[in-house]
């Protein structure tokens, strides 16, 4: 099964994506991650103002079958969280790179080592069976 890996994004090995928007970075989970988890039914995100270091757990995402920690691919202060996901998390499954975005951070400059789309697609292929 092949997954959508948009070329313009950067990815963490723990399946978060990062997109630059002005001075901010928007973070979500990849198509591969949402597909592996299955229907997302539960989500915990940080409060606005939370300061994250790269690699910090910033929340948890859960399906019927599994739970998964969310790790900050970049450091920074959380300036927005996707409030639409509070009542329904379906957007994460249906549009993980769009309406299913999770948080927006004002980047501190610190970052995990991120993968480009090609490297991330290979990272997904390694784990698919």
């Amino acid at each position, binding site marked *: 099964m092949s997954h959508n890996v948009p070329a313009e994004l950067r990815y963490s090995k723990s399946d978060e994506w990062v997109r630059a928007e002005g001075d901010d970075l928007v973070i979500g989970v990849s198509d591969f991650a949402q597909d592996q988890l*299955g229907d997302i039914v*539960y989500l915990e995100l940080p409060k606005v103002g939370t300061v994250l270091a790269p690699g910090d757990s910033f929340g948890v995402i859960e*399906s019927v*079958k599994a*739970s998964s920690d969310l790790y900050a691919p970049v450091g920074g202060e959380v300036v927005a969280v996707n409030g639409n996901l509070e009542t329904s998390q379906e957007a994460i499954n249906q549009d993980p790179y769009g309406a299913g975005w999770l948080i927006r951070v004002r980047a501190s400059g610190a970052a995990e080592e991120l993968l480009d789309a090609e490297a991330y697609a290979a990272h997904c292929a390694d784990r698919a*069976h």
Partner: protein
Amino acid sequence: MLKRTPLFEKHVAAGARMVEFGGWEMPVQYSGIIDEHTAVRQRAGIFDISHMGRLMVRGNQAEEFLQHVATCNVSAISLGQSSYGLLCHPDGGIVDDIFVYHLPEEYLVVINASNREKDWQWLHAHTAGFDVEIVSRSDRWAMLALQGPEAEAILIQAEESGAGSLSALPFHGVALSALFGYTTLVARTGYAGEDGFELFFDAVHAEEFWDRLVGLGAKPCGLGARDSLRFEPCLSLYGHEISDTINPYEARLGWVVKLDKGDFVGREALARIKAEGPVRRLTGFEMIGKGVARGDYPVHNLDGELVGAVTTGMPAPTLGRPLGMAYVPTALSAEGSEFDIIIRGKPVRARAIKMPFYTPRYKK
């Protein structure tokens, strides 16, 4: 090397996600766990459960033998009926949970996939002195579960010349029939908390059965939905709610133990455990704090002491909220008791609630 059922190729070709379960490579989901779960609650779903063990117990003393090894009253299972039962160790720990079907001149015993080898050894270790023979049908027969309120209507269409006799099959009844023209053992049993059937037939017809039942409207379902469907009515899963080191009274399965039926393996220990009362007990719980409990998460009392562990936990699809089952000291198992589930290192408050979470809708 993982074992595969006769439907393995079918699952893969249909795009199911395959996982390891009890040494078997099985589909965990087809369209999605919630979609499949909902289909079974509202309509009908079909599960490949050919990984489960199917043993024929026959011989002049088949009944006496089963009465000796199982906790249920096998002599009370009339011909064409079946019963849930347990195999217990001499100390009362549960070897396996089983289903015993009374067929003409023999019994069919269905056992868990993960316990097939263990049960085979254990049963044979107890045959001395009985005129009994145990024959495995696990490889020659396939086993499908057709579950949900529309299962009966689908089965009637599958029945040879629409005879309709299967609609008269009672709860836990078992009968020989012909489905799609093939001899099939049909039992009104299941593991979803809904009306439904389990089908046993020659494995060479497995793919045809699967396709035709799907064609009649049964939704292909995987082990993910099987787990969430059994979780809501609080049906035990071996390795989670029950195990070699858990006894039936702890697991709230005392109703399956017929102490007054005569002697059987484990009876002495079980009688003592019943008289003394279990020290720990399976309890259902809801989350008061925010979080989802999962299997093996620790349970603390309100003084912060480790007192138990979660056996199964998930956001229950039909009930729409995270629920769980856990072993806690008996005093904490009463409805309304509060304790903490340790979720990713942090205590999250939970409250004991009534089991089952979902009342089964069997056709009695």
